[in-house]
């Protein structure tokens, strides 16, 4: 069966259960994972942009190409406007999704070419 993906079972769920979580106490304390206040540009790109804009996806145009420094402001304005307003099929992204601080960091990283080799799918198998 050469074409069936076989998965190692090292983390298959245990049937014995283990300690049951008391939700009442859990909910009154802390969450397991919270989104940090401001994500790094590469993380925003990976989580949101790369799914469509990475070269191997080709759903949207490539956006990581370095721009000449003289065009950074104009290009930045274009990106900011596109992210916040959307453009044709591109959805608009609200500050609740990509904060102003994250967007400014992302713009700087994009125009300067910092993300030129950003992976399309970090964390995948």
């Amino acid at each position: 069966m050469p074409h069936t993906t076989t998965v190692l079972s090292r983390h298959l769920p245990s049937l014995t259960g283990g300690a049951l979580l008391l939700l009442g106490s859990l909910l009154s304390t802390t969450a397991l994972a919270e989104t940090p206040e401001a994500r790094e540009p590469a993380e925003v790109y990976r989580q949101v942009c790369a799914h469509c804009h990475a070269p191997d996806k080709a759903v949207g145009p490539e956006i990581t190409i370095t721009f000449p420094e003289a065009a950074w402001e104009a290009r930045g304005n274009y990106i900011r406007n596109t992210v916040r307003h959307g453009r044709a099929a591109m959805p608009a992204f609200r500050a609740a999704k990509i904060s102003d601080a994250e967007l400014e960091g992302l713009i700087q990283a994009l125009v300067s070419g910092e993300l030129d080799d950003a992976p399309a799918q970090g964390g995948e198998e």
Partner: protein
Amino acid sequence: MSTTPRILPKGVSEADFDAALARFREILGADGVLTESDQLAPYTKIMMAGDDADYIPSAALLPTTTEQVQGIVRTCNEYKVPIWTISTGKNLGYGSAAPGETGQVMLDMHRMNRILDVDPDVCTALLEPGVTYQQLYDHIQEKGYKLWLDPPAPSAIAGPVGNTLDRGVGYTPYGEHFMFQCGMEVVLANGEVVRTGMGGIENSSSWQVFKWGYGPYIDGLFTQSNYGIVTKMGLWLMPEPPAYRPFIIQYQDPEDIEEIVDVLRPLRIAQIIPNAVVIVHTLWDAGTHVVRKDYYDGSDSIPREAIERIKADEGIGEWNVYAALYGTPEQIEVNWKIVEQAFGASGKAKIMYGEEAEQRGGGFEYRSALMKGDMNLQEFGLYNWRGGGGSMWFAPVSQAKGSETKDQTELAQQILGKYGFDYVAEYIVGWRDMHHVIDLLYNRQDPEETQRAHDCFAELIDEFAKRGYGLYRTNTEFMEQVAGTFGEPLREVHKTLKNALDPNGILSPGKSGIRQ
């Protein structure tokens, strides 16, 4: 100073609105209340064929806690301010992050994005509405849990709570999302908080494992509705199987849809094929990576001759069935033989998996990712098919019977053809039902084409209803019309519940056609 007239909630005076905004700022802080036009711009982008002027919010509120949501609804009751609730706001083609009507205040739950629990033993999660599939996926990867998600096509940027509440679907064996929901925390319109199922028992350990609780089961009341604001939701996660085999079956003739469905149905009901299978038409399969104008530049419906050229060039069938087997390698071998035998009987099917399927092109790679719950937005390539950013999902339900599929396909192609649009469609096969999902793609930059798309969608709703086919979900522009197709007695019940639970009508007025 702007001279643009201020957008106000319907029936609310400027003074009352200002008083409400001041109260909202006390509750949320200044940065949790958005009123400037540049802040509200992302809440106005729509893809459906509605008038932009009908979907402009007056403000947006960004709570981070259930207590803040309670404070918001109490304030809304006092000043009769209507709010429209969104979570991740990526219900693209269904209304996105825009309000149901101009003037409503957006209640944007995206900042409530805590993953409260993932239990790898009983395979459950408890989430806030702002959590995205990508966020949950990353968390599970980081923890090393062998659990799979079931994202819809917008996967990474959408979220499990919002999608489940809109009764969305995915592509794994957990594809019917509401079936795998378990327990909610809901803020009611009066500001009270209720936990459904076992959640009412203090310190209950079974909130996320036993759906029904005691007495009437009410979770469904908070889906596709405006009876409360869900602030926490439990869901079941699929344990990663030891083995997985995605495959594709191609058929070449338009009439073959009948055979496909009738062969598939018993395999699906018996869970030989356990996942939400898709039967994808040529134009959908090609549309994720091919541009229409490369084959046809006319403004009318793409002709048969061009469809045949696409099939030949891309190696795509008229109908392309994507499905998968899950389990141990031994189970998969047994079930594979059954699948081969069933689909091989007529000699029409081409069955492929592994390298043969990967080399065949089309959507196999991204479909394989979605059927195992990976993050993938390749399907958005459909938006490049015609271009212009217009998209509406027309999604009538049918029985999983070939005769109904043939009837629906012919009716859809006839109406779409009349208005000059393409049949870009797939069937998503549930246990006994199918969602016939048609992406009505149009150029939203062209007002004439947008009006034509609007008229086409309206006719599709009416003509399908005349033959007994109703929609499982629709966009905000057509909620009233679709509600009408389900009959007055049901609408009266919806209205009675609305008046009982939300007497001031502050929660998402118009959602699913429900108002006071």
